[in-house]
């Protein structure tokens, strides 16, 4: 969960971009890194294989607004989406404050989406997190592809646990929907930390 440095007046939140392999998690972070002003971002760490598959994780620290005198910083992580790398995913999930589930909208990737989402729920349960209480945002990526599932069916597949969570269409490679997703998960994390009272945002 969030790490508060009272001396430095900084709160660090951890947001993890989860999803199946090749869904566009790293593309999200790359776009965020590309488009944020220099003062609001750190350097992006990425460890990828020769074919650009994320090996361990991507990491991008970004700073946001100040709330009640505390500077809020978000550490954005991605996980390796490939099925066999579950230990890495579990490690990255530890201490998570919010999750963006990046789904591949293409028909032939729906099964991987469902399996990845179930894997997410399972890993969260192992950490005793309540998936219904943790801020989660769904991003239906690759909407620019030709054979994509309708939003209603994607919601039926992924947005069905307890209460409906916000979902966004996205084309991460061109940036569409990336900041909408990020801003929503960031604000949901802030609400869960500070409550619904804004209390001195600057």
């Amino acid at each position, binding site marked *: 969960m969030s790490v508060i440095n009272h001396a430095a007046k900084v709160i660090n939140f951890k947001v993890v971009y989860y999803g199946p392999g090749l869904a566009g998690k790293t*593309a999200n972070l790359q776009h965020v890194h*590309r488009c944020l002003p220099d003062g609001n971002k750190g350097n992006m760490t990425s460890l990828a294989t020769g074919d*650009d598959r994320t090996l361990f994780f991507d990491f991008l620290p970004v700073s946001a607004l100040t709330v009640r005198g505390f500077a809020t910083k978000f550490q954005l992580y991605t996980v390796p989406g490939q099925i066999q790398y579950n230990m*890495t995913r579990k490690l990255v999930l530890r201490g998570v404050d919010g999750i963006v589930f990046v789904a591949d909208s293409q028909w032939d990737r729906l099964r991987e989406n469902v399996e990845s989402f179930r894997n997410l729920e399972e890993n969260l349960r192992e950490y005793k997190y309540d998936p219904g209480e943790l801020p989660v945002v769904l991003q239906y990526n690759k909407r620019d592809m030709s054979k994509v*599932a309708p939003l209603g069916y994607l919601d039926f597949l992924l947005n069905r646990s307890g209460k409906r969570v916000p979902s966004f269409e996205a084309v991460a490679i061109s940036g569409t929907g990336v*900041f909408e997703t990020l801003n929503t998960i960031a*604000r*949901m994390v802030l609400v869960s930390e500070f409550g619904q009272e804004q209390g001195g945002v600057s």
Partner: protein
Amino acid sequence: MMHAIRKPAPWTIAAGAFALYLSAVTTPVDLALGAAIVPLPLSTALLMPALVYALLILMFFPRVAVARRLAGAGLLCTVHALLSLMTAGLYSAIGFFPFHEALAQAFVGFPPAPFLQILLAPLMVLPFRKHFVPRQPHLSERLSAPLWEGPWIPSGPPADPPSSEPVKDFVLDPVTEEVRVKGPEMEEANQAPSWAEVARLPEPSPRPAIPRDGAEAAVGASARMGQSGPGVSRREKRPSPPVAEKSSSPVERPASEDQEVPGFTRSLRASPEGTGRRPASDPVKKVIQIPFDWIAGQLPAEAFLIPTDRLAARLPQPNVLLIPQDLVVPQLPEGVVQIAWEVVAGQFPEGTLALPHEKIAEGIHGGMLRLPLDEVVRQLPTEIFTLPLRSAKVLGIEAFPLPFQPVLRDPSVSAAAPADSLKVPKGDSPRSGGLEHGGIQRLERPADASASKSVQAERRTPEAQEEEPLRACTPATENDSPVRPVELSRLTIETGRLSALLAPIGSPKVDVEVTAGAMLFIVSSPQLAKDALVSTAIRLVPVLADSGDLGAIDQVTLRASGGAIILTPFFPHGPGGTVLVAGLRRRGSLAMLEILCRRAAAEYRDRHSDLLAPIETPVRERYRAPELRDVAVPGQVDLLVGSMSAFGPLTPSALCDETGSTLLYLFSGPGVEANPLARLAWGLYHALTIDGPPDGLWPLRSIALRQGRQRIVIQPVAGEPGRSRLLVAAGAKAGHPGLAHLQVGRAAERLGSL
């Protein structure tokens, strides 16, 4: 049912109960003869059994139809009357009473008799209850029943069906395309067709026909699989969705409900559905249409005797196969829909298949036919996908402004670039040879490595436009990716391998921690807290990444009073990402541990030579050294040069930060620049001190860095409160690292005493 009634167990129980009754009803009469017994009123004797039986039926069979309840009560009353008659006969035979008087005694005159009959009648009927009341599955059975089960493929020889099988009435609603089976024959119709039935399927009519046989087979297979998910019942309740209207598959449908279809006229006429009316009790089976080509592509190529286009035309429903919806709907939440060969086997006309059905089923990849999900979803009503969930609105987020506002960039950055125009910057150093844009950097990949779209986009940076062209790169695809079948998680393999490599110090346990953008493989002795290692590592790793002009650092060894920590970046030219962190409480085997860690890192690099090196680890600004200025070298420092012979020839210098709070005495060998060395030393020292010392380790004794054959030792110098002094020695000759460390320690002591 009759077979079940012929079972001996219920009869044995009933006979036993009857024998007990006879003895029970006879003994009291024998004892009571001559006594004055008050008979029951006739109305009581007649009404009481009926009321009791009715109550029993109501209590124990609450969900049975009224007609069945009445029949049950009637049965019990009948048994009661028979028992009374037999009791009277018994009394007469034994000689208690004449028959007419015994009859009165059995019914009303002797009260224990009717009471015993009321008790006995249910006892005798109870063993036969299964045969009169349809058995409801137990709750646990219903809960444990899977929504979807794999189909059953018959493996034995086909059984011949009865020769005089009646014609079943199936009706396809021309509007909703629902296949309905008439009620009285439902049970038989829902039996899956045997292979013999399948083989005797009639040839299709030359004109478009309602898929009687195909639908029959599909419906039968569906029923055999026991599909009864909630989606089915929900679907049956909805008002006749225009499934076919939403479909664009090339299927000709009857123009009206009254249209007669060759080969099916008799059934259609005989059924009331021919008029469009639907009896409420008729089961409804809906189907979806799947293009034959899709299925044919998954079947063994040698499965067909005739070309697939001709076979498609000869299907009961030309060009499509029919799949019962109740097989499909329960699978929809899985994101994939699969069926067994058995489901569609009955729709292939006789003489079109070259292989037996078992062979065809075996030849299907994975044993199941995958259906096109887009076709399936398109043919289903949207209300199936509507879940009764709470709103997606998140209360309170409007109270916070948007935390992140993107700045507009050159749209060409994210646009796809022609592969032949991609550029890379020139440069000699490993970092400058990579691709850099806005802080994202990747080291140059092998020439044969492929690139993803995202990296191509990164490469279209303005800085890169004027550089030499990069040869064409092919975007990586799922099939290209070298995903190897890994039984164990890669991390398990890595930690196991590291543990094995470190076996000379006792095969320590290796933990993995992801924090602050770094993945740390942690090897710790039991006496040293893992948190102290992690805390130290995440402070030092960013500074190492910022070593700048000094070059990559291979290894850092931190000695403190609480123990020693060795940091070995797996990729020295980009120290972020993965780092091996080893801790020792005692320093006895420190040198060996250093060697083993370097070996482990080298082995890791060799195995992962296809990796792109890590980009950068975030550098904390406050650990970054300020500008340092030269100050005069005290005379005592000059004298210490000769005492550090293990480093080879050294040149003394002194630098101080702007505030004067940190003074560095430098002894640098040939080719070592003083300023970068001082900045690195300043950064490492302040990373360890600025947020307070790591728990359990302080006070710091020294920091030793290995850079190829060069050795750098940083030693705090005691003696001046409020001001930090560091002695830093760096020499290219490091043949005796132990001696070098000892000499620096002595020199620092002498400086501190001055």
